[in-house]
Structures are given as structure tokens and as C-alpha cells.
């Protein structure tokens, strides 16, 4: 009797293990394309480009030759190349300022778009238009549009440089408030168009988070006498704090890959025009490592403040 039960249990266990095994196999079958692709088209090229960054690469007729040169390419990127250092620092600081601005802006817009008002569908459609219209080549073309730039200049000249931000800035400056931080803020405000068109996806992500918060929470808070402002900080903020992390990651990465990014342009130029594959690989590895370190540190800091509701 007992033995029988034991046997049965064993059998059942075996069955479960069998199912688990089958599921594991099926799982691998499903993700097989990714695994193969990752090994062939990511790890191998990554390894090769790491290798190339330590080499001098020469293109031959039917093959390419690599000669080991050690750290020469890295030293070249930092000490010989006239632009690389400057571009790297510039792009990093631009990235920090703009990513912060994009996060704040998209959170704000998502809060507004989540409210109920007339014409919401239309406004939403317009705000997500940049997702479609400001990708790939169009961003690069947009950013060096000289016609717009000259138009802005003309306007500035005819109005003698009177703009709201300039006026505010001069007021603050005469009041003696810390100047450098404000300069950055005003720079962002003057370029609010760039911020707006880069924040489509982020708005969508925040919006989806806002819609997943149950309204009963707000009702309870309202009955307890919470003001709107308080419930924003005590309910909305913690509930979607995990999305801040997601958005931060997405924004930083998106910024790195934009085609009007100075470092990327530089790398492309070195690779395609000057055919210096070794140098280009070294530069892109430096850039990648810097960005990875930056992303790692900042997301560690942010994840400390993230609250998970389960």
C-alpha cells in the first residue's frame, strides 16, 4: 500500500520533471533565433571589433590583415586626435542635461494627457506624431536646417534679442542667482522643440503606467483629505517610479544612437572616409564603455529609489 503510494509519487514526480524538461526545451526552441543571432551577429563582431581596436587593419584584395599594435589606437583617440576628447565630453554633458529634461517633460505631458478633457484623442495623436516623424535620417537633417536657423536669427535681430528666456535670464543674473546651472536650464528651454520631439516613446511609457494605477487609491486619498499635490507625490510618483528607470535607460540609449550625435558622426567619418578601422573600433569601444558605465551608475542610483508594488 505504502510502497504503491511511494511509487506513484515517484511516477508523478518523474512526469512533472518530464514536463519541465519539455518546457525547458520548448523555451529554448522559442528563443533559439535570439541565441543564434546573439552569438553570430553580436558576440562575434563585438569580439572582433575589440580585437581590431588593438590592431592596425589593412584591407587587401581578398582578405584583411591585422597587425597587433597594442594600445596605440586608444592613445591615438585620446591624445592625437584633435576632436575626439572634446566631442566625447560635449556629448556626455549634453546627454545628461537633455535626458533629464526629456524625463521631466514627458512625465509632465503624460500627467496632462491622462486627464479627461475635450479633444484628448487629437492632442494624443499630435504628441505621438514625433515618434514617427523624428526618427532616423530626419533628425539629422532637421538639426542642421540652416533656413530655420537663419530665420530665427532674423527674428532675433528684428526684435533686438527680446525673448522671454533672455529677459528672465538677465533678471536672474542681476539678482545674482547661480548662473551656470540656469544657463543650462535656459538652453534646454530654448531648445524645447528638440526635447518635445524626442520624448514620444517616453510619454507613451509613462501614460501606460499612469493608466495602470487604480483609481480607488486616489479616491481613498481624496476622502482622507489629501490634496491633488499630495497624492501626486504620495501615490503617482511611487507607483510609476519603476518606469522612471525604464525611461531613463531608453532615453540615454536613444541619445547615444541618434545620427546627429557628434561622437557617432566622428566614428563614421573615421571608418568610412578615412578607412581606419582600428581607430574607429577603438573610439567606439571607448564610447560604449563610457556610456555603459554611465548607464550602470545612474540606474543603480535610480533603482535605490524605486518602489515596487506587488
Amino acid at each position: 500500500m505504502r510502497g504503491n503510494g511511494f511509487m506513484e509519487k515517484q511516477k508523478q514526480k518523474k512526469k512533472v520533471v518530464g514536463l519541465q524538461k519539455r518546457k525547458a526545451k520548448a523555451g529554448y526552441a522559442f528563443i533559439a533565433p535570439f541565441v543564434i543571432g546573439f552569438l553570430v551577429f553580436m558576440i562575434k563582431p563585438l569580439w572582433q571589433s575589440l580585437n581590431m581596436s588593438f590592431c592596425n587593419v589593412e584591407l587587401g584584395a581578398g582578405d584583411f590583415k591585422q597587425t597587433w599594435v597594442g594600445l596605440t589606437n586608444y592613445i591615438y583617440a585620446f591624445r592625437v586626435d584633435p576632436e575626439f576628447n572634446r566631442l566625447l565630453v560635449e556629448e556626455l554633458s549634453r546627454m545628461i542635461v537633455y535626458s533629464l529634461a526629456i524625463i521631466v517633460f514627458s512625465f509632465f505631458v503624460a500627467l496632462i494627457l491622462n486627464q479627461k478633457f475635450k479633444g484628448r484623442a487629437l492632442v494624443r495623436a499630435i504628441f505621438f506624431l514625433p515618434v514617427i516623424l523624428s526618427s532616423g535620417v530626419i533628425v539629422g537633417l532637421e538639426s542642421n536646417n540652416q533656413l530655420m536657423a537663419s530665420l530665427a536669427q532674423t527674428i532675433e535681430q528684428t526684435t533686438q534679442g527680446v525673448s522671454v528666456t533672455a529677459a528672465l535670464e538677465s533678471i536672474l543674473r542681476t539678482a545674482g542667482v547661480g548662473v551656470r546651472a540656469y544657463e543650462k536650464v535656459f538652453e534646454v528651454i530654448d531648445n524645447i522643440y528638440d526635447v518635445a520631439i524626442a520624448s514620444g516613446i517616453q510619454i507613451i511609457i509613462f501614460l501606460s503606467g499612469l493608466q495602470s494605477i487604480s483609481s480607488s487609491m486616489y479616491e481613498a486619498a481624496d476622502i482622507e483629505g489629501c490634496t491633488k499635490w499630495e497624492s501626486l507625490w504620495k501615490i503617482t510618483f511611487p507607483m510609476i517610479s519603476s518606469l522612471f528607470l525604464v525611461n531613463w535607460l531608453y532615453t540615454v540609449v536613444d541619445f547615444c544612437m541618434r545620427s546627429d550625435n557628434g561622437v557617432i558622426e566622428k566614428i563614421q567619418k573615421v571608418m568610412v572616409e578615412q578607412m581606419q578601422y582600428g581607430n574607429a573600433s577603438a573610439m567606439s569601444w571607448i564610447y560604449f564603455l563610457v556610456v555603459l558605465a554611465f548607464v550602470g551608475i545612474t540606474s543603480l542610483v535610480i533603482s535605490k529609489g524605486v518602489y515596487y508594488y506587488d
Partner: protein
Amino acid sequence: MTDMALAQKMSAKENKKKTLVHQDKDFWERNRLSGGYLLQKKIMDIGLSIFRFILLFGMCFMILQPILNKISVSFMTEQDLYNPIVIAIPEHFTTANYRLAAELMSYGQALINSILISLTIAVLQITVCTLVGYGFARFEFPFKKFWFAAVILVILIPPQTIASSLHLHFRFFDILGLFKLTTGSTLNLRGSALPYYLMSAGCMGLKNGLYIFIIRQFFRGLPVDLEEAAYVDGCGMLKTFVRIMLPQAKPPITSCFLFAFVWQWTDGFYSRLFLGNTKLVSTSLSRIIDSLGAYIQRINGVKTTISVAYSNCILATGTLMIIMPLIILYLFAQRAFVESIANTGIKM
């Protein structure tokens, strides 16, 4: 019996009327009862909605303005561009800009190529990413965490990092030295679209990590019971996936498909790297100013510098022409798109 019911109905109606009257009754009276709170609230509500309207109107205008500006510029003659009085409505209306831009970009052919490539790439990418996303969401297998970290890594690595080695990889393409043994030389796959299709099938195309992530998040949110019921009924893994899970995943798949199509349409990086010789709208747009210079030189016979205003006018026209199909697509799909992505519930 019926009388009583009728009477009840009547009284209910009366009651309703009463409360309605009560609600309608004198705003000021109720305001007085609430000690001025009602008025305060009403004023604040109206003020807020006016403020919101101004803010939203301004921001919408800011987003739309460049497009409107491009539309007005694209119909202007060169003469109008220099005329400081002409701002929005062209004085000499012309469609010559469109004809010129179409010729410079070889629009017809580029459009067909772009549609073909974007469509096939998007279908391929989303098919594969759906499979992989489902695998990550619903199965337990060894090293799952490791592979998912790899997905995140794919999102994080700028494709430029591996661009140079991919370039060489496909220039001297070989599978374990087989081609070199049999034919004596490696394959040169540069200039053909094959490498790009291979990469897309391997989830390493344009932003594929992101699609995997979104689709996985969606599948994770679905109840497990559905699949278990299907398994109990004797469905296999693949059949369950195709018949039960796939129909539910329409919203994220549509939005990812739209993303894939649109981003592929405007992509310059991968297109230049892999599809260099194929005429696409994105690559021909980025070269439009150079081709304008060449065109004018061919006509005049001498190298002349083109004015900034005119070249930008042509650029604006070209940009409009390549985003027009996208705008039409968006007009049809935007409702489904916005709703679906907002309901997907992306969470880390």
C-alpha cells in the same frame, strides 16, 4: 397592481426631478451653504482647464509648426524665398519643387524599394521577436536570466560599436571557412540585402531588443490558466502559442510592427551599412542636397554654389515627400496604435 406600479414610477420620477431641481437650484445658495468653497473650486477648475488648453495648444503648435512650415515653403518659387514679405502663403504658387525633388531622389523607384524592404524587414523582425518574447515570458529554462540580460545588452550596445567589424564580417563572409575551401575565396555580401535579412532573423536588426522587451512584458501580464487549459486539452506548445496566445497579443504586435516599419523607413544607419546600392527614400533624402548640386552643375555646365534657402526648400519638399506615406499610415492607424500601446502596460 398596475396602478401601484405606475404610482411608484411617478413618485420615482418626481423624486429624480426634485433632486435635479435641487442640483440646479441656485448655485449661489449652495455656495453660501458651503461657505464659499464651491465658488473657489469652480473658479479653480475653470482656470486650470484654460491654463491646460493654452499649454497644450502651444505645445501642439510647436510640434506641428515645422511640418506646416515645410508645406508652405515647398510650394514657393525661389523668388518667394527671398521676399521678406512672404511668410506663410506663397505669392508665386508652384509645384516645380516637387517635380525636382522627385527627380533628384528618383522617388518612384525609391518608394517601391522602401516599401518592399520596410515591409519584409518589419514582418521578419516582428515574427521572430514575438516568438522570442513569448519564450522569455512563459517558459522556465536554465540560464534564462543570462539570456534576458543579453537582450538588455542588445538594447544597450550602440550598433555603431560593431559596425566596423560587421562591415568586414560581411565583406569577407564565410561560414567556418567552408567557402574558402570550396571556391578559394570568401563571399562578398556587401551591397546585397541578404546580411540584413539574416541579422533581422537573428533578432539583431534595428531596435529588435526593444520589441522583444515590449512583447515579453505583454505576455507576462496574461493569465497562465489559458495555456494550461490548452495543454490539458492536448494542444502542443506551438499550437497553443499560435491558436491561443497569438490572437490575444494583437495590440503589442501591431504597435511593434508599426514601429518596425516606420523606423526602418527612416533609418539611415543600417541602410547605409547594408543596403548601400539599393535606392531607398531615406538614403536618397540624405543625399538630396549633393544631388541638387550635381544636377544644377549638369544643367549650367559650370559649378555654381546653390543658395542656402533654395537647397533647404528642396530639402523640405523631399522630407515632406518621404514622410507623407507615414503620415497617411499614422492617420489610419493612430487610434489603434495609441490605445494599444497605452494599454500594453509596460513595466520593469
